[in-house]
């Protein structure tokens, strides 16, 4: 029987396939090792190279395995020396960096001045395609290693010079007193020789000089970190390691947290936030992060750049009921904004509670008056563009528009304009195709007011999405950068910020909070200014 024999084959194939499935697993449960913190993680967007990591998930690992020249205090956000012995300057332009002696990478190699200089040169060189390369653009010679057009004409930055094993100098293109503050940013991490000699091997198991070292890395699923025996700094881990488990959905991670399969979750699903405090029996924290959300406008051409429109933009700002929106939509995980920076900076680094003043307060009557005085919305309407593919921006955009419409008494004055993908949204912005309002946001690289102003509002700056240009503002940035006294510099930066707010280039909406929940199994969970858990401080209960 032809048919029957074929049927046997089919049945056999199914049986084999099933057998293969059944023995696919082992009985050993991952990460239930004593003393190890199990934390939720997301698959990093880029290879784990310091100058190529632009998002939080990859940054989380780099923060753990690298100790930079500076580090930021988890509580105050203050930048203090870490791997650096000292960073000195006489003219705010040439800096002498002394690296602490006796520091080692986790593979035993010594951390020297060359480890930093080589790493920075690698990060800056355009052919290496590092996405953080612009961080080195203030160093002399950047225009040679990464020219806007054509191939690089130099391989190294002329502004970097190794003096001796533990000293190097950095020459910037212009004065910048706050420059050392940014050296805690991951792009400035030192790299061991292995990075250059065995690049693929390095990416499979990155080597750093931080409190932790990578024990094993299964790409796409999990990474195990253990304390680095070579580490001599102040952040020695209080646990026996961290197991980062990749979750594709924060709801699943939340289920695992409740089921006791996970210890730390720093991306609680929005719909669970209102239950989190009771669900987790108080093991929950929500605090402002270094992220500010705004609505921006195209200001280089078109209707929104005309004179008088700054009044309209101010009016729109006053028409937004920030308090209600943050409470209703975000259950208090956003804090209404009062400036263009973030509360994590603290007063010392430039945060201000009242710099925006009345313009950021909900005031329907004044709002209507201002919009009318400025000539009304161009053509009687406005849109707020947002990318519809992630982060659920639709809810708040609709709420903001609703708030504006209510004030104007016109249901169609403001409508949301979804753009299909994030890539398309960014393409429209960079090509200057936006014609009305659009969502904007900034996640700080380092806790300093300068980082919230220069890249966003300086003429021709890398993230100046509204293409705004103001000579007085540029002048103040320059003046602040040359000011040796950081207090005075911060004050000057605030004067510059005032100009942005007077023109209402971007309407400040709210600061995003970092939220985290943890299991009964661990204690001592806190968030740093970047809203990343301070892993080295987490203790595991026996």
């Amino acid at each position: 029987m032809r048919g029957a024999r074929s049927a046997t084959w089919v049945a056999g194939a199914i049986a084999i396939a099933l057998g293969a499935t059944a023995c696919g697993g082992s009985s050993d449960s991952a990460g239930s090792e004593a003393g190890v913190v199990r934390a939720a993680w997301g698959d990093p967007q880029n290879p784990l190279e310091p100058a190529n990591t632009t998002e939080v998930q990859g940054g989380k690992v780099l923060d753990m395995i690298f100790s930079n020249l500076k580090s930021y205090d988890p509580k105050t956000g203050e930048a203090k020396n870490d791997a650096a012995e000292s960073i000195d300057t006489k003219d705010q332009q040439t800096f002498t960096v002394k690296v602490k002696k006796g520091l080692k990478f986790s593979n035993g190699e010594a951390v020297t001045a060359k480890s930093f200089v080589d790493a920075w040169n690698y990060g800056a060189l355009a052919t290496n395609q590092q996405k953080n390369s612009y961080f080195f653009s203030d160093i002399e010679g950047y225009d040679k290693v990464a020219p806007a057009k054509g191939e690089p004409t130099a391989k190294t930055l002329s502004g970097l010079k190794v003096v001796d094993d533990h000293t190097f100098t950095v020459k910037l293109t212009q004065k910048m007193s706050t420059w050392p503050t940014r050296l805690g940013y991951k792009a400035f991490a030192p790299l061991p020789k292995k990075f250059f000699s065995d690049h693929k091997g390095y990416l499979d198991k990155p080597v750093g000089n931080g409190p932790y070292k990578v024990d094993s890395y299964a790409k796409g699923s999990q990474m195990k970190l253990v304390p680095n025996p070579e580490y001599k700094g102040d952040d020695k881990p209080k646990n026996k390691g961290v197991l980062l488990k990749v979750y594709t959905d924060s709801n699943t991670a939340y289920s695992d947290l409740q089921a006791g399969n996970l210890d730390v979750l720093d991306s609680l699903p929005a719909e669970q936030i209102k239950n989190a405090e009771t669900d987790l029996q108080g093991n929950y924290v929500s605090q402002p992060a270094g992220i500010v959300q705004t609505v921006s406008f195209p200001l280089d051409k078109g209707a929104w750049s005309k004179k008088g429109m700054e009044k309209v933009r101010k009016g729109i700002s006053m028409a937004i009921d920030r308090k209600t929106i943050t409470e209703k939509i975000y259950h208090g995980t956003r804090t209404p904004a009062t400036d263009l920076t973030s509360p994590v900076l603290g007063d010392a680094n430039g945060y201000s509670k009242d710099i925006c003043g009345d313009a950021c307060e909900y005031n329907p009557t004044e709002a209507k008056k201002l919009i009318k005085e400025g000539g009304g919305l161009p053509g009687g309407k406005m849109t707020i563009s947002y990318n519809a593919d992630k982060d659920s921006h639709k809810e708040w955009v609709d709420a903001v528009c609703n708030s504006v419409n209510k004030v104007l008494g016109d249901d169609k004055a403001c409508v949301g304009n979804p753009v299909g993908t994030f890539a398309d949204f960014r393409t429209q912005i960079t090509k200057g195709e936006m014609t009305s309002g659009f969502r904007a946001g900034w996640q700080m690289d380092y806790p300093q007011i300068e980082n919230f102003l220069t890249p966003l509002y300086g003429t021709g700056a890398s993230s100046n999405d509204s293409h705004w240009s103001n000579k007085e503002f540029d002048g103040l940035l320059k003046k602040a950068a040359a000011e040796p006294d950081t207090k005075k510099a911060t004050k000057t930066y605030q004067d510059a910020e005032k100009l942005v707010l007077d023109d209402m280039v971007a309407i400040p909406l709210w600061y995003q909070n970092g939220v985290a929940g943890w299991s009964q199994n661990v204690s001592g969970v806190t968030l740093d200014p970047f809203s990343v858990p301070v892993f080295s401080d987490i203790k595991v209960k026996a």
Partner: protein
Amino acid sequence: MGRYVVRRLLQMVPVFIGTTFLIFVMVYALGDPVAAMFGDRTPDPATAAQIRESLHLNDPLWSQYLQYMAGIFQGDFGTAFNGRPVIELMGDAFPNTVQLTLVAFVIELVVGVTLGVVAGMRRGRLIDTGVLVLTLIVISIPTFVTGYLLQYFVGVKWGALPPSVSSEVRFEELILPGIVLAGVSLAYVARLTRTSIAENIRSDYIRTATAKGLPRRRVISVHLLRNSLIPVVTFLGTDIGGLMAGAIVTERIFNLQGVGFQLYQGILRQNAPTVVGFVTVLVVVFLAANLLVDLLYAVLDPRIRYA
């Protein structure tokens, strides 16, 4: 039969080229992939130019497609956003998804066909109505609802089964997602089987078989079931592809890093090589499953012959 198989294989070529090209064009139309790589930040012009160059983004679309296809035939599916070769991602993702698909498929086959046979044999009785109502409920509830509910109750509340799949992908972790993934198709399989059985049970050859005095089990399993399974096999065959591609929701809920997850990431991050690569393999799976179904007809019904 050999000639038939060759003809079918040749037919696959234009289908394969057509689908991959369509996907390629669609992904390309989603916006500039380089713009998305840098987050809310305008790319540094020098770096962006280098990336554009290395991804051949400056070439015309047809040339990019040709280069891509040339790569595929040399086993090079390109590189994903995170610098990993797509072929490596596939090596991670497909085994996971195949395991989940198999678990779901077996649940679907065993439970679905059993329910269908039981209902079909007792048409109009209480048990038949029960199966019909039950399958209707399963069909009308979206996967993510059953997924989250099962995960919460079975996984978190009762702790009977693990609520998510760990990196080792153990068998017991796949049971819950398997049930969820199988759910809807299982209902269809049950209904198809039921109708088919109910139809054939009154046919002459069954009466003959019974009259010959064959045992009831043999009549049902060999005579009745074999003839009634043709529509079910058609459905199951196409469903294999459907299960693999359609597991996005289930894989997300149960944290399985499979095909659905990689596709989702690829689309979200504008990574043409990931999306096109995975879809290409899925297209091949679909085509192969269809061919297998057509060949299985001959096994089930000897009257069907291929020349």
